[in-house]
């Protein structure tokens, strides 16, 4: 009896300028497999379904627990983390492609550093006086912690940006992840001293008004972050800030 197998089709591209090709793989099925363990299998035996020798797949990964945010890719057309994409839950052949909205590096690796640049632009940090012992932090009630904690769970996977119709070179939209971080830091007792600067950073081109309310972001977020709520809250604050700035001249 033939053993059960897993069929994969992976989009390969040796470099940003090289042509893209699809390669097929057929692996022996094992319980509990996920897309990363399948690619580890390919690395140990880099041969296509047709029996042709090839190279191991290049992809980003690190924690394999869906907390580091590294292994985002398109699996059967859906942007998601590869480590938590269990083979048994996927229709075969499983089609795997890199995220499409970011500069390609190789195979499934893309360059998502734009998110870190955006976080810098909105000053996504609490401006503490220094790291010396200055006593305890501000009092935070559990009700408030329960609002900030989910926002602080963002793993920077960029899935929300990948699926956003407005996230493209034309608009220069910062994307939902960055806006949610603005809400997080604007609500922090100390972080809010930079509130106005953050709102102004989101007021111009590529800012929050680019959002078209497609709501794809909140659906795809692997951490179920209330992204659309964050966008409406921050959007309102940006508007108020604009009015204030206008009246101040």
């Amino acid at each position, binding site marked *: 009896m033939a053993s059960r197998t897993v069929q994969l089709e992976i989009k390969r591209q040796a470099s940003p300028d090289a042509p893209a090709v699809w390669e097929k793989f057929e692996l022996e099925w*094992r319980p*509990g497999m*996920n897309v*990363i*363990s399948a690619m580890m299998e390919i*690395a*140990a035996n880099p041969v296509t379904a047709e029996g042709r*020798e*090839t*190279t*191991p797949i290049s992809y*980003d*990964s*690190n*924690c*394999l*627990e*869906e*907390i*580091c945010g*590294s292994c985002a890719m398109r699996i059967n057309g859906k942007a998601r983390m590869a*480590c*938590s994409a269990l083979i048994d839950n996927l229709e075969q052949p499983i089609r795997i492609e890199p995220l499409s909205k970011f500069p390609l*590096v*190789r*195979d499934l*690796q893309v360059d*998502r*550093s734009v998110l*870190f640049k955006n*976080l*810098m632009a909105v*000053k*996504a*940090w*609490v*401006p*503490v006086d*220094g*790291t010396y*012992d*200055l*006593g*305890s*932090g*501000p*009092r*935070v*009630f*559990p009700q408030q*912690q*329960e609002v*900030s*904690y989910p926002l*602080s*769970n963002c*793993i*920077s996977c960029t899935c929300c940006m990948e699926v956003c119709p407005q996230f493209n070179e034309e608009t220069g939209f910062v994307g939902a992840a960055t806006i949610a971080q603005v809400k997080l*830091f604007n609500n922090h007792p*100390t972080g809010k001293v930079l509130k106005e600067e953050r709102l102004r950073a989101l007021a111009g081109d590529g800012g929050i008004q680019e959002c078209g309310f497609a709501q794809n972001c909140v659906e795809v977020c692997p951490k179920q972050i209330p992204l659309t709520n964050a966008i409406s809250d921050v959007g309102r604050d940006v508007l108020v800030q604009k009015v204030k700035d206008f009246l101040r001249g």
Partner: protein
Amino acid sequence: MAGPRIIVVGGGLAGLAAVIKIAEAGGNVDLFSIVPVKRSHSVCAQGGINAAKNLKGEGDTTAQHFDDTIYGGDFLANQTPVKAMCEMAPAIIDLLDRMGVPFNRTPEGLLDFRRFGGTLYHRTAFAGATTGQQLLYALDEQARRYESEGKVRKYEGWEFLSAILDEKGVARGITAMDLRSMELRAFPADAIILATGGIGAIFGKSTNSVACTGSAQSALYQQGAYYANGEFIQVHPTCIPGEDKLRLMSESARGEGGRVWVPRTAGDKRPVKQIPESERFYFLEEWYPKYGNLVPRDVATRAIHKVVYEHGLGIDGQPMVYLDVTHIDHETLNRKLEGILEIYEKFVGDDPREVPMKIFPGMHYTMGGLWVDFNLMTSIPGIFAAGECEYQHHGANRLGANSLVSCMFDGFNAGPNAMRYAKSAAATEGDGGAAAELQRQTEINKKLLSSSGTENPFKLWRELGHTMTEHATVIRYNQGLKQADEKIVELLDRYKNVNLSDKSQWANTSFAFTRQLYNMLELSRTVVQGAILRDESRGAHYKPDFPDRNDEKFLKTTKASFTGAPEGPRFEFEDVDTQYIKPRPRRYDAAK
């Protein structure tokens, strides 16, 4: 005048803590990391961070934290740095709180604390069950703030290859490889801090992240740095076995009341929820009535092994036991443990709120590491080590929630210490040896690229992982350890015949991995041979043939140095600093 230039390798908690301290003190930092720093392995720490803040009216003190840590580590840790760490811990929590870490709160708005293994106090501050993630992000944000001011330059996607040493053996910089362009480059520095984490990959599957290969530590060890207590490897009692890795199920599940059990009858076929209380064997609670499910990790791990392999009571005859939180109300579970319960749900498919989790021990933490003095400097002048890659704080067994505090403590000390060193170091003569070291690294790459053998590096790695897990984890026998060493020697030999199926010079991840693999092989011999020499049982190191701790012979730090000879490392032993707490027998079946 420009401040000193310091290189920090590794952007996890310890590395970022050092970066922030250096930038704050006016130094310039070049930060090297294989992955974008926000994706470092520190994100995986779940349960919390220890500090004796005594906010629960239990009379907890830093002295008690110090004693628990030394006792939990079976007296192998040098006491001076551990004492300093425990004393600094409350201020570290305050600082993290000020940086905006969303710690769980009490109704009054104060920090909440939970219990963890190896202590009877509520000493662990936590942010849900993703504390490491939250801490790392807070530091990442502060580092980004300094980056925006031009004080920190990040080299993300660059891998450390070696130190640049001058004629006197003093470090003058590093060589690193761009993992995209594969370019090799020398970077000068006045001081260097290594904060490169644990060595989980040596065991094949572990709870560690993919980047935790120990390659950097090994490279430095091969350049002459001492590697200390390599044989001390923590196997975490509660992991979810997986195809690609062992996923951690945090000790906080037990800290919040989770119970470990197996059916009393082998092969009990009833659905788990139908097994009545009286027919469940809560073996940790029976064997260790005082600490119960919160015995230290080495004790819990051995107990699970015993119940599975000696009593034959693994679930369905498999090497698995139940970790049960179904008796805890859903609201509490979601508020305090949601992060880890989601991991179980996502990767196993069952809801742990309804069905007990099935877990088994897995390799988790590296207590040993680069030898450092009390200023965190390695035996190579100018190179410091911080966090899991050094050996200093956890002795023979680390207590849960002490790793995050040791990372913070180390980074906060290594940073200023490196600055002090850099300011007083003699100027570099010539290029400090940079050209020669770059040449040596170029040769290694050339040789690897021209290799036309038949051995697949990923298969060699799997073989290493199997042998290390079989012989050098929970239970160790000298015969098995010797077999493991022979196997490593065989793998080193086969490595010469390695086949790089990908020889391209662009984002070649298997090329980078193959370089790491060599370093993993060399370093694994310090683990195995260190274990052979230590004929006693202490903390995580357990030999049934030598079941007792032997302070007379082995209350010593193991120091391995690289020889390049076929026999492997050379070993020497150093006395442990026990000036504050006199070693006493370690037992958890009664109050200590």
